[in-house]
């Protein structure tokens, strides 16, 4: 229990905390303002005027749609692979103790513990050694590798909270492993998997460091944006794309939060 003098923070602490929070959010707000500016040659502030024109222009851009489709496709496939690999290994690691358990955890965490460029370069050189041409699948290989940990962390946290007696009861009543999984385990871990899947999707959707190295000519939406960042050619369209990318990742993140807020915390920070 907390004592009464503990409940009021010193003003300086409160100010520093709120300023820190603002520091994390104001830059993102800026993206929303710039998406509607009438200025199209510079990053002028304050915007000389506001318009909805660029939303329409972006809507009619086939290259943006192409990149968007590729990003969604890669994120969807990678998330599915990560869900399978992450759930299975989480079940193994949390249900039993075995030789090499720590190694398995390390193996799963490594792709996000090491800087992304290492994963990227390693995969790229492996593709060239094995003569694998770049395609959607080379991108997926990279993405799924670092998405596994997100699903895994969420699933492990949930498995630890789920009691094993339910599983034993189900088996005692004559259900086989698959029925037990379908009717007992899956309903128990479903929200954790959904949350892990959403975060994996968000992670894959906006990943760029590994993607630039594992994509050939294909441009995912972040790669499209990166090109614009390095050599700005169509600022208004980039502004709108930035806003869209933010919103597409924002929704699954928020959903994930509401799915796991009771009890579990979001694990597996890191990209």
């Amino acid at each position: 229990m907390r004592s009464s003098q503990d409940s009021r923070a010193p003003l300086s602490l409160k100010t520093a905390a709120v300023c820190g929070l603002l520091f994390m959010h104001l830059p993102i707000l800026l993206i929303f303002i710039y998406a509607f500016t009438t200025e199209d040659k510079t990053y002028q502030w304050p915007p000389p005027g506001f318009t909805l024109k660029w939303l329409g222009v972006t809507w009619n851009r086939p290259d943006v749609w192409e990149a968007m489709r590729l990003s969604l496709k890669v994120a969807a496939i990678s998330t599915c692979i990560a869900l399978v690999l992450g759930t299975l290994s989480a079940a193994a690691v949390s249900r039993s103790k075995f030789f090499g358990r720590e190694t398995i955890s390390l193996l799963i965490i490594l792709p996000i513990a090491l800087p992304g460029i290492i994963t990227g370069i390693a995969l790229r050189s492996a593709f060239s050694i094995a003569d694998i041409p770049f395609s959607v699948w080379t991108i997926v290989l990279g993405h799924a590798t670092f998405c596994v940990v997100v699903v895994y962390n969420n699933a492990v946290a949930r498995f630890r909270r789920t009691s094993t007696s339910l599983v034993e009861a189900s088996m005692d009543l004559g259900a086989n492993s698959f029925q037990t999984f379908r009717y007992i385990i899956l309903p128990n871990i479903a929200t954790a998997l959904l949350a892990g899947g959403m975060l994996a999707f968000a992670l894959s959707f906006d990943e760029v460091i590994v993607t630039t190295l594992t994509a050939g000519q294909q441009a995912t939406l972040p790669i499209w944006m990166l090109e614009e960042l390095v050599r700005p050619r169509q600022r208004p369209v980039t502004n709108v794309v930035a806003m869209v990318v933010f919103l597409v990742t924002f929704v699954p993140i928020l959903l994930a939060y509401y799915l796991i807020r009771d009890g579990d915390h979001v694990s597996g920070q890191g990209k």
Partner: protein
Amino acid sequence: MIHTHTLPDNKGLMAKLSDLFWRRPWVLLLALLLPAILWLGIIYIGSLVALLVQSFFSIDEFSGLIKYELTLKTYLELLRPANLDIIVRTVTMATSVTVAAVVVAFPIAFYAARYARGRWKVVFYVGVMLPLWSSYLVKVYAWKLILAKEGILNWILAKLHLGWALDGILSIPVIGGNSLSVSYIGTFFVFLYVWLPFMVLPMQAALERVPNSYLEASADLGAKPSKTFWSVVFPLALPGIIAGSIFTFSLTLGDYIIPQIVGSSRLFIGQAVYSHQGTAGNIPLAAAFTVVPIVIMAFYLWFAKRKGAFDAL
């Protein structure tokens, strides 16, 4: 198990498999682990090992082709002043970003862990989690907008008549430059911004675990709040701080996009790796460069483990 004998023997494949899993748990364990081991072991570890092996090859200076003989020549090349500069620059940046992240993140984590209640708790939690997960490139892009010459920061400074202060800071040799977007200070701010949430969350988790009774005991024994902070709160929060610093440090070490978009044209490790494998085609040197962050992080993780930082993750 008794029921396996009482049931009829002509069971489906699923049931047979299920029985096998029950009688031989290791089969189930293997079935659960095999997909992940195959995927990560072959694709990820395989590529990583292949990369490391290549760092022991060298490039022929005349033909530009890779010589497939084991040598340490490529590693010696890392010690050239130009390459050493890149390493020192990157490590210095990673260190300053980490220190700054600790300073900026601490009040947020401290307030969220010990004072925020009810709705404010949610605001702080979501307020840190959203920027953590939201798009990396969009965040970098936002800073390109902020730091642009005609952008909001210069506008605010001009309104406050503080343009001279910025000019003063930019005239500092090495870290300054023509404008914020082409100086190390600019790079620093973007790094700090992008990795800050990675510091706040583990810190907050560690602070939440400090029992209130400890603080009361410390106060009862006559310690002033500052003494309590430095002798009780800070040491207990340290594992969380180290856990957060693993992220800020590692992510800065390996990043090649932020310094490319905001910063002077001088290279960081990530950019060096990228350019050596790309246009230069010098895979051995690129591979040797990637070994630098791997070695640094290995030491860092070893140190963090000793300090109990992994329990704070």
